[in-house]
């Protein structure tokens, strides 16, 4: 199966596209856009994930004991 994949044929083109080439070429722009998307997505995810954790813990604490005993 691996032999069937045209590594030699594609390798140079893939490398040219994904590694740093001349300023502003297509590969660089695509990588920049993907990086920005990951950056924005992770910031949103940080907020949503933590909100979920805090809301669940606060609800559990309220339900279980009213005001919880202070941590030591």
């Amino acid at each position, binding site marked *: 199966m691996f032999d069937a994949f045209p590594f030699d044929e594609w390798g140079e083109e893939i490398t040219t596209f994904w*590694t*740093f080439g*001349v*300023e*502003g070429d297509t590969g*660089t*722009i695509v990588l*920049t856009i993907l*990086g*920005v998307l*990951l*950056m924005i997505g*992770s*910031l949103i995810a*940080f*907020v949503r*994930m*933590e*909100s979920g*954790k*805090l*809301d669940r*813990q*606060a609800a559990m*604490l*309220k339900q279980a004991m009213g*005001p*919880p*005993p*202070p*941590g*030591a």
Partner: protein
Amino acid sequence: MSSSIFVLAETVEEQIKALQDRQALDSQILTEQFYFWTVVIMWLIHAGFMAYEAGAARRKNIMSTAMKNILTIAVVTPTFYYFGWYIYGCMQTGFPTVGPDSLDGHAGPPAFPGFCGLTAPWSEGMGPNLQDHVSLVFFLAFLLFSWTTASIMSGALIERVRLSAFLLLGVMLGSVVWILDAAWGWSSGGWMTTRFGFHDSIASAVVHGVAGAFTLGVLLNLGPRIGKYDVMGRARTFRAHNTHMTLMGLMLIFTGFYGFYAACLVIQSTTFPGWLNIYLSPTTLGTIAMVITFGFAGGFTGGWFASKGDPFWTLSGGLAGVISVSAGADVYHPSLAYLLSFTGGMACVWVGTWIEKTLRIDDAVGAVAVHGFSGFYGIFLVGIFAGGYPTGINNIESSFGGQLIGILTFVPLGFLSGYVFSWILKKTNLLRVPPEVELEGLDMAEFQQDFYPEFERAPEVIIGPDGEELEAGPILLDGYATVTSGRATTRAGS
């Protein structure tokens, strides 16, 4: 005969040219190595901030405190890469403009005409480039400064801020606010320097002062920790879970500061005649190293006496002392640094106490006093003690007026941006953890575990306003009832 002399001359000329090319390359690689090692040393600042703040936290909040420092790296690094560095490169003379007077559509610095274009993430300066040995390491040095601004804010907010809120605030401070002020007042082309001779060579105000002002704005919206103030508004003290860890963290920060100081200089022997400060005015590495060392000596002394021997404030005094003399570190005599840092170390203790007890603002580690006050005090001192020193490529003399413009620009820039952004987070209920979680401790909610499982829990103790040790439970429950009932019992609005 004459033809052989001609051939010899050609050969010598070629050899000289080859030597010059090699010298230029060696010089660039030395510059690259220099900034690389400053970056390595500056990591200690962040290891130090983590230990410092985690040690100052109560046992129930250790990991949530430490994770703020670690995840600062996760969010400030990409944001600074994708837009923060561009702000520095392209906004030194103001905001970007489009028109015949602009430089390729940007407000680029006149000292480095192509610098703006090299700061975009898709540019040839921001990726692998065999012809450019400087851009990436220079970026990395500034990135470490950016982490530092977020870490300065971090400690002040511990034990009640949401981790994600801190990260968003860190992005705003580390990748927008501080780097904008650095573009204006901490660059060779910044309008404050080229027009007014503003002088802040090792970033007293542009890093520390602005981060402190930003933090103050955030603290006003965040409010104090539950139980921090009694019904009379008197401050209680939460006992740090590990003061030794805090002091060790501060010592790591101090070590990293030598890298920070060195990274604030410019060296490129084939382009410039020797060591230069960030404004491209001459200085030496030894000069700033002496100032930082005497700054610690004076600051520790001042902090010790002003706090009557309190360990935390003694070390904080050392930090404040250094920050107080950083702005003029390229020109100060060591004795002057010693004297001024002594006053800075003392003043930070008084200001920190005033903020806590009179203003009733709960700054858990005294960051507003140590960094904010000392940072602006530092540029104020330059106006007095280094007035007349020619600064920058235009050789504009430093002056008290120029330094005042710096204060009047940076205090509102830092404070208002911190206040407005944290106010938005507060209104969207994203700034502070629920009071139940704060009472129980953030580590259980965030990580579902105690981080010293093998050690038995000792009852939590709070130091009362008169110095007496009190059982924490009833005080915290009373504070919780106050918060959840909406019944205000203190002016601090807890």
